[in-house]
């Protein structure tokens, strides 16, 4: 048994090493004065300086953040409406059809979402750029929010709502004072996921971005197609740290809300 266990440990360690190797590799070479990703010549901060001096790149970063925050907020609101709507429907067939439609964008390959949105925006006469990117990010985030919020609604006991109604609460009171506080963890999870999906998306954005407007993913793609430039490495190191903070922040937030919910029991 001990032999199997040590073999397992070696295997797992190898998987972890391989998973992190490219990321670490990128980070190390972001400090390479040699200017390539093959041999490490010396230590330099030049590429970081270049990244911070590049106003175009900073504007792109800002674009990406604005799109992510706006689309996450709007899709969270729409998604909560969606979850409430699906939960409210009583007929099983209607409910399942709504759920199936909801899942279409989650399971569709990005290329198809991108291509079909390109057609849609062209037909609607929406110019490709900020608006089209924002709309498509909202569109693919809504179903995710629904999926995160719906289980919370379903696990909520209906007696809570009944009690509130018996005590004379209006429909709006029930929603704002009973239902929404109860499903808040789901809403936060949905918002966070929408945010990361938007920050991460490349394929859909690539289709609907047009000429004047780019997000970070699209920019990285065009930079990488031109070949190796250590600016990308520096940028990716910064992004990695940012992602790490975001994930850790979410993790602790989650722990706290979970604890907060458990204490009153």
């Amino acid at each position, binding site marked *: 048994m001990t032999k199997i266990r040590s073999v*397992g440990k070696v*295997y*797992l360690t190898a*998987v*972890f090493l391989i*998973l992190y190797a*490219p*990321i670490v*590799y*990128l980070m190390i070479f972001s400090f390479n004065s040699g200017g*390539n*990703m*093959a041999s490490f010549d010396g230590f330099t901060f030049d590429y970081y300086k270049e990244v911070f001096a590049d106003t175009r790149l900073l504007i792109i970063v800002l674009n990406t953040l604005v799109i992510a925050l706006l689309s996450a907020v709007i899709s969270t609101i*729409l998604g909560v*409406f*969606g979850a*409430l*709507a*699906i939960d*409210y*429907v009583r007929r099983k067939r209607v409910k399942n059809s*709504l*759920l*199936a*439609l*909801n*899942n*279409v*964008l989650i*399971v*569709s*390959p*990005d*290329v*198809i979402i991108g*291509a*079909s949105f390109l*057609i*849609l925006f062209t037909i609607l006469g929406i110019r490709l750029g900020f608006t089209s990117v924002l709309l498509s990010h909202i569109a693919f985030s*809504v179903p995710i929010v629904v999926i995160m919020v*719906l289980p919370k*609604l379903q696990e909520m006991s209906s007696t809570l*709502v009944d009690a509130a109604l018996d005590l004379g609460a209006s429909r709006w009171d*029930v929603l704002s004072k009973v*239902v929404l506080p109860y499903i808040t963890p789901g809403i936060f999870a949905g918002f966070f996921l929408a945010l*990361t999906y938007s920050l*991460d998306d*490349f*394929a859909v954005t690539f*289709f609907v971005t047009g000429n004047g407007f780019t997000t970070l993913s699209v920019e*990285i*793609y065009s930079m*990488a197609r031109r070949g*190796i430039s250590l600016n*990308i490495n520096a940028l*990716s190191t910064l*992004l990695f740290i940012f*992602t790490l903070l975001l*994930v850790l922040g979410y*993790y602790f937030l989650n722990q706290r809300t979970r604890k907060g919910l458990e204490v009153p029991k």
Partner: protein
Amino acid sequence: MRNISGKNIYLIPYAIYILLFVVAPIALVFYYSFFDMNQQFTIANYEKFFTATYLKMTLSSFWYAALITFFSLLVAYPAAYLITKLKHRQLWLLLIILPSWINLLLKAYAFLGIFGTNGPTNAFLETIGIGQQQLLFTDFSFVFVSVYIFIPFMLLPIYNALEKLNPSFVYASLDLGASPWTTFKRVVFPLTIDGVKAGCLAVFIPSLSLFMITRLIAGNRVITLGTAIEQHFLVTQDWGMGSTIAVFLVIIMAIMMFVLGGQKVGASK
């Protein structure tokens, strides 16, 4: 929310969203697949899809997706199993998932250096006596990088399935004299098959449509359905043919989901 009287007002914004961003785009793709580059109605796109070039492309796209799915499963299943045996499994799981938060393009870009002619992989091959190889822009690098990217997506559902598995089944099997391998084959694997199916679904369909990896890593040598769609929409501007390929991709996806997922994806529990 059972006993509130009145209409389902929440449905209005959501229904508008569904019609505009789910139903309309699919309908439009289907509609556009019947038009040629001069906006003339035609079924030529479908005829073209059934010629040797496109069928071969579809087959090779399937072959690569199958390879990627197979290798992801091969790596991810044991890893998921081992994680369930660890003490701080939540932390380890987080560590496995963390790389999937990193932008996919950056990870692909890293491999440009790692697999490059003077990169560390070639240096390693040199030292062990195999000698320098052309690694970038080959089928191997495409499959390797794709597997690398998809491992977390395969691992997560399998881990969840293993986590739910009642250990007393395993003990019972071992007590009754089954070898660890038999126990795995007859008890553990069948009981976690839903996780495996979900993982395969999460890997297979996206690998049919990876176009950025083929461009960056495979140097246009590998053409998947996704690459072809991107090419038709953004390079040659032949939206009709692009839509036709998209229609087939949707059909393939639906079949895959029917075979692997059953009604699970659509139905509520």
